[in-house]
Each structure stands twice: as C-alpha cells, then as structure tokens.
C-alpha cells in the first residue's frame, strides 16, 4: 500500500514536470509579443523593452523555465504578467470556486446517470433502454452553451426558479453560492450524463451475465436484494472510477459553462491566461489542474480497491 502511494507520488511529480514543460514549450511557440499583448497596441518601444526586462522575457527560454520551476517549487508562484496580482491568491480563490462547482456537478450527475444507466441496463433493449440512450445521447454533441441556453430560458426566464447568472460574490460560502451553482452544474451534468449512463448500463449488462447472479436468484432472494446487494455492487465499479477521474476535468475543463453562466472558476482564468500570454498564471493553473487530475485518479484507484476485494494495491 505505502509502496503503491510512493510510486504514485513519483509518477505525479513526473507528470507535473512533463506537463509544465509541454505547456511552457507551447507557450514559447505562441505568436504575439507578450509585452505588446500586456501593454496594448498603444505602448511605445521603450515601455515594451522595460517590461521585457522586468519579466525576464529576454532570457533564453530554458533560463526562464528554470527560474519559474525553481520559484514554483519554493512556493513562490509569482505575480501575474498582466494584472500584476499575486498569482497564488487569485488561483486558489478560483480553485475554491471550481471545487464547489465540481462538487455540485458530481452530486447531481452521479445519482442521475447511475439511475438512468441502471434502469437501462436492467431493461436492456426494451423501449425504456432505447429512450434513455437516445435522450442522453442527444445532448452529448450539443455544446454547453446550447444546453445552458435552453436551461436558462426555461428555468430562469420562464419558471423563475433559478438565477440565470452565477457570478458569485468573492468568498461566498458554499451555501450562499449553491442556488447559483445548480444551473451550471446541471449543464455540465448533461454532457457527462450519456457517457456515465452508458458505462453504467454496460456494467450492469455485463454483471447480469455472470453466473453468480443466477446463484443469488436461485437462493430465493428478492429482486431488490439481488439487484442492489449483488449486481450493482460489482456493476458500478467502473462507473465510480470514471466519475472520479472526470473530477479532474471538472476542475478546469468547464471553460464554456463558466463563460455561459459567468462563473468565476479556473476555466475562465485559464482562457484569460492564454489570451494574455500570462505564462506564470497559465503554469500555476496547469499545475493545479494536473494535480487535481492526478489526485482524482488516485482517488479512483483507492475507491476501486476499497470496493473490489480482488484488487490489491502495490
């Protein structure tokens, strides 16, 4: 177990390193003069040059990267190139928001998708199964700004039950924010729904084939006992891990949702950073994201191992 954790930690560090290099490398290739993008098209050469000096943009790339890495490891995330704000505070603030949203999404998506998937799986190839897969699939290809649009029209403007906008106040507590979290969460859920539901369905169908189900039934156990105690326990394993993994994506992958509802999450900050060539900001966000992804992966494995006696970590 401890060996397992050790190895994972090593991999995590490796991943962080690789991704930070990837991101840094690509940003070097990005067109656009960083200084010019920061100071705007009206700034004069001298000003630009001064800024480049200040930000060390004239140093060779590996020096820049090295400097960043060194500082970052020492916990100094630096100031934003563009807004000059201390990055750490900004990113952590946004991370907090993103976590709140991600949490809500999981809380919504999990029961919804599982129920749908289980029902579909238990009624394989029956109308209800087809209905569920068609319904959930129809929204997969639709970008969040369409589903979001519809949800807003209906839930906010027609029924007036939820706010159309989610720009939560700074430092809002989870419960203050909750009403504003639901719509974006619902929108993101629709994207995941089909994926998770289909996965669950597959899992259920797969397990139903297993001989042990027959054993259970022929014990004279009630339908519910068979389904919940025997089938689902095994059927849901893959689903749970997938959800845990997608948690990483939820943390900063929700760019569009955050835009549509103007939710102050990491995703929008990410776009901002790229737009503004705000390298240290971008790197910080990337690291956070990768960390989140890695941790949720780890979480997934642990949950899986916990629920599945056949798996031994190590």
């Amino acid at each position, binding site marked *: 177990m401890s060996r397992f954790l050790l190895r994972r930690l090593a991999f995590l560090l490796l991943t962080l390193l690789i*991704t930070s290099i990837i991101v840094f490398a690509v940003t070097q290739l990005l067109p656009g003069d960083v200084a010019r993008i920061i100071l705007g098209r009206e700034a004069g050469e001298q000003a630009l040059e001064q800024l480049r000096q200040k930000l060390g943009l004239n140093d060779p790339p590996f020096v820049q990267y090295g400097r960043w890495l060194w500082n970052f490891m020492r916990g100094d995330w630096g100031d934003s190139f563009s807004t000059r704000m201390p990055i750490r505070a900004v990113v952590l603030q946004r991370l907090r928001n993103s976590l709140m949203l991600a949490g809500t999404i999981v809380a919504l998506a999990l029961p919804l998708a599982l129920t749908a998937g289980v029902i579909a799986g238990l009624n394989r190839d029956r109308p209800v199964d087809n209905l569920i897969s068609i319904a959930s699939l129809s929204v997969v290809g639709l970008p969040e700004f369409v589903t979001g649009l519809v949800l807003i029209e209906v839930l906010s403007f027609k029924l007036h039950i939820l706010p159309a906008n989610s720009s939560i106040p700074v430092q809002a507590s989870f419960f203050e924010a909750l009403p504003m979290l639901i719509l974006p969460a619902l929108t993101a859920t629709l994207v995941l729904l089909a994926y998770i539901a289909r996965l669950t369905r597959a899992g259920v169908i797969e397990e139903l084939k297993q001989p042990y189900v027959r054993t259970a039934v022929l014990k004279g156990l009630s339908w519910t006992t068979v389904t919940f105690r025997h089938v689902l326990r095994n059927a849901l394993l893959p689903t749970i891990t997938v959800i845990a993994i997608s948690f990483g994506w939820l943390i900063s992958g929700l760019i569009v949702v955050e835009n549509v509802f103007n939710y102050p999450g990491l995703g929008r900050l990410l776009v901002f950073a790229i737009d503004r060539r705000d390298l240290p900001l971008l790197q910080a966000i990337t690291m956070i994201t990768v960390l989140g992804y890695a941790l949720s992966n780890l979480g997934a494995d642990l949950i899986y191992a916990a629920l599945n006696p056949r798996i031994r970590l190590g």
Partner: protein
Amino acid sequence: MIAAGNSGAAPPRGRRLNALLAGLYRHSASALGTSIVVLFLTLALIGPLIAPFGLNEQIATDALAPPSGKHLFGTDLLGRDVFSRVILGARQVLELAGTGTLIAVLLGTSIGLFSGYRGGWLDELVMRFFDSLLSLPALLLALLLLGTLGPSQRSVLVVIAVVYTPIVARVVRSVALSVKTKGFIDAARLQGESLGRILFREIFPSALPTLAVEASLRFSYAIFLVASLGFLGIGVQPPSPDWGLMVKEARAYVSQAPWALYFPAGAIAMIVVGVNLMADGLKRELQASRE
C-alpha cells in the same frame, strides 16, 4: 471460391457486409441509428446538389426570416438559408469531426496496439506521456495548439487528433494487453509472423467492437469540441456551415431567430444519436458473429 485452390479465401466482402447490415436492422435501435448515419452520409455526398441555396448566399431582404416554404428552416442574421447550410454542413462535419476522429483512431490504434503488445518500459513511457496529455483539459490543449498553429480547419483537425489519440490508444491498448496472452498470438509468434501482421491482422480485429463504440463517442465529442472552440472564437472559420459554428453564431441572436440555432443543434443531436446507436449495433454484431 471458384477454383478449389482458392478455398482459403474468406467469403466475399459483399456477403459479409450484407449479413452485417441485416444484423443491424434486426434491432430497432441500431436500425434507427444506421438509417440516420446513412441519411447524413448521403447528404454529405449529394448535399451541394440538393441544397436550394449556397452556403454563404445572402438574401439581404430575407434576413432573420422564420421557416417558410422558401426557407424550410428559416434564415440567419445575414439572410442565409439555414436549411441549405444544415445540408451542406453534413459534409463539413464529416470532414472535420469525422476526419479528426479518424486520424485520432488511426494513430491511437497503432500506438495502443504496439505499446500494449510490446509492453515493458516503452509501454510505460508512452502511457506516462499520454497520461500527462490527458491530465490537461482538452480545451487547454486546444487553445494552446490553435494559438500556435493559427486558427484554421487544418489546426482543428490537429487539435482533435491530439486530444483524442491518447484516449483511443488507452482503450486499444487494454484490448491488446488481454489478447496478447491468447493462444493464437503464441501461434502467430511461433510461425514468425511480422510485428505488423501480429498487430493489425491478429490483434486488431478483436479491438474492433470496442473501438467502434469508442470512436463513435469520440466523434460525438469532436463535434462538441469544434463547437466549443467556435464559441471561444477560434477554430473553424466563417462562413463555414459547420453545425457547431452555426449554433455558436446563431446564439448571438437566438431571441430573434431561434430556428437558426435549433435546426443545426437538432442535426448535431441526430447524428450523434445515430452514430452511437449504430456503433452499439456494430459491436453487438461483430462480437456475435465471431465470439
């Protein structure tokens, strides 16, 4: 099979294809899916012939006109016929999301097969790298790449490929891992089959059913990705009739002309449903017929 000497030959493609289609049409769901896919494929082929208007043909006087006999799906802000654009979009979507997914599938499959079969440190390395890529949000990768390559159809293809190759590779790899322990692979190795042959003739077919489903799902998300990129103002260039882009553009004036948004959106929903249902059917048939 005319000459006895030819007895090694498999049944002609045609017959197997018919059998497959027959199988697909036995189940209502996959029948529906297949029909939809066929429909859109035909549109992609003959779209330009049947579209009443050009993809960027603007009738200023008809701007924002609601659905009517002249414009079945109404017109958009610039007075372009939505119906025509949806039809012409079919080819566009296949060219973009379709080709992109295809590239990802080809790359992913090759890498996944090789990495899984070869195993060892190389496999470890490749998977590490892919994990790293996967741990970056798709849109981040997309934004960075598009920023670097400059917005264009080609760049979007690259993006889709880069974003989905690792995922496909993973799926295929897991199949490769399970198949490579099978007896018939030992047999192939004992016969001294070439690596390529082992990967693509011996292992690959077993991956097909899973791959079909994965690919269709990727295709769905590719459409989605293209649209999202459009939303962020990068990627496909106007006046492309890409449904994702149409939806994005129409969003700006949805309150004036909802049809301009809902018809392309509907098209997306339809093809996604179609492709996925068909893939389910394919998986079922492929496995049923061989395992």
